[in-house]
């Protein structure tokens, strides 16, 4: 255990090519998928909280269900759509980063929507009543609600990114964990552990933790500074 840790640290410090490639693939997948999910989820989630229509409750339940979508089911869905027999096969996206991003966006967007909705829904009635009382347009009232939810966007992004780097099931199904192409940190940890190569697994695990720590620190510093 201790030697595995020592070797792992040495591996990270040596700037191993395979290791760097795995990290690079992970970031090229996680950053776009979390950003796209955020761009979709923030307006949708806030809108869901803002609009007081009859089907709202049902939509919230549907979204909560999608938040719990098992990654392998999402992987299966993407596989069926994009593999050799699927309707989208001519896009030739199987075992590529773009398809991994698509699968991740399907998984993560509902989480961003849910995070924004549950926050904005608490203040939406007061914001709406105040804005309408002044005679502001619906559009301005909505933008005010987004503005009131701005610090929640950081937490939503944290959730999205953490989910993106931690996910295994869907990305291994549609990405195939091909070395130097679609192998990300989580799938690599699985593979190398299965091969009995704990050193690389531990090294990757440490880096994952460190990335999460750095991001969380950055966000909480930013949040603290802005909300002061």
């Amino acid at each position: 255990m201790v030697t595995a840790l020592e070797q792992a640290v040495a591996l990270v410090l040596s700037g191993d090519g395979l290791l760097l490639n795995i990290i690079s693939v992970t970031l090229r997948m996680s950053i776009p998928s979390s950003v796209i999910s955020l761009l979709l989820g923030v307006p949708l989630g806030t809108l869901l909280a803002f609009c007081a229509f009859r089907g709202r409750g049902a939509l919230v339940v549907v979204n909560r269900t999608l938040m719990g979508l098992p990654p392998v089911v999402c992987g299966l869905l993407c596989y069926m759509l994009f593999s050799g027999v699927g309707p989208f096969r001519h896009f030739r996206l199987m075992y590529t980063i773009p398809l991994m991003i698509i699968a991740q966006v399907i998984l993560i967007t509902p989480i961003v929507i849910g995070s924004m909705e549950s926050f904005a829904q608490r203040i939406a009635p007061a914001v709406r009543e105040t804005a309408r009382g002044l005679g502001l347009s619906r559009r301005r009232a909505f933008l005010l609600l987004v503005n009131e939810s701005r610090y929640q966007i950081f937490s939503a992004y944290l959730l999205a990114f953490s989910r993106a780097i931690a996910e295994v099931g869907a990305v291994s199904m549609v990405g195939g964990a091909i070395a130097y192409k679609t192998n990300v940190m989580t799938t690599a940890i699985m593979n190398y552990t299965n091969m009995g190569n704990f050193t690389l697994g531990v090294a990757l695990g440490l880096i994952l933790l460190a990335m999460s720590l750095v991001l969380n620190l950055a966000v909480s510093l930013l949040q603290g500074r802005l909300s002061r």
Partner: protein
Amino acid sequence: MNLPPFRKSYGGRVVLDFPGGELPGDGVCAVIGTNGSGKSTLARLAAGVLEPDRGCPGWPGRPRVGYLPQHSYPFQMSVRANVLLNAAGRGRKEARERADALLDRLGILALADKPAHHLSGGETARMALARLLMRDYGLLVLDEPTAAMDIRSTALAEELVGGYQARTGCAVLWITHSLKQARRTARAVFFLQEGQLAEQGPAETLLTAPRTEALRRFLDFYAL
């Protein structure tokens, strides 16, 4: 100006059955009544922000309404920025001058650059009133605008709304739990009880010589 009939129920329970009533064109109409008597519900329906049992929010022939909710929301920006949200097409400089003048008249100009969500309850209420009065409306609906204010701020608020009313000639529906305030400000009074308009009339007669037993008992409580 005539308010139309309004009816609102929640889950089969009628919380307001308002038969319609006339608002004086040259002064304030105070709405009084116990907790839960339907005052805020009447305010929301008159302001057009609540859907009545039948039909859509709003009512035919209504003027531009400015409505101050019982708990007006302080947006997370400076006090001045909050007030400027209601600048409505004015030039920047003119809007800012008007905002600062309103804040000054309510005694919170010194707080203009503070974040609005750090204000005290009474300061928030004054900011909300200043924000509302940035624009000229045909009808003002004020839901307990001074409930959180101290005596001095209340006097400033009454003076400000009085001046606004005189300048614009708007109708004002003013909900209050203070009979003294109703006497000071109102020409007419609506007395609500359990969702019914139990009594309405000119302020002098209604507040001194109640016709109904319900209003007599209500006024007696204040005499205690």
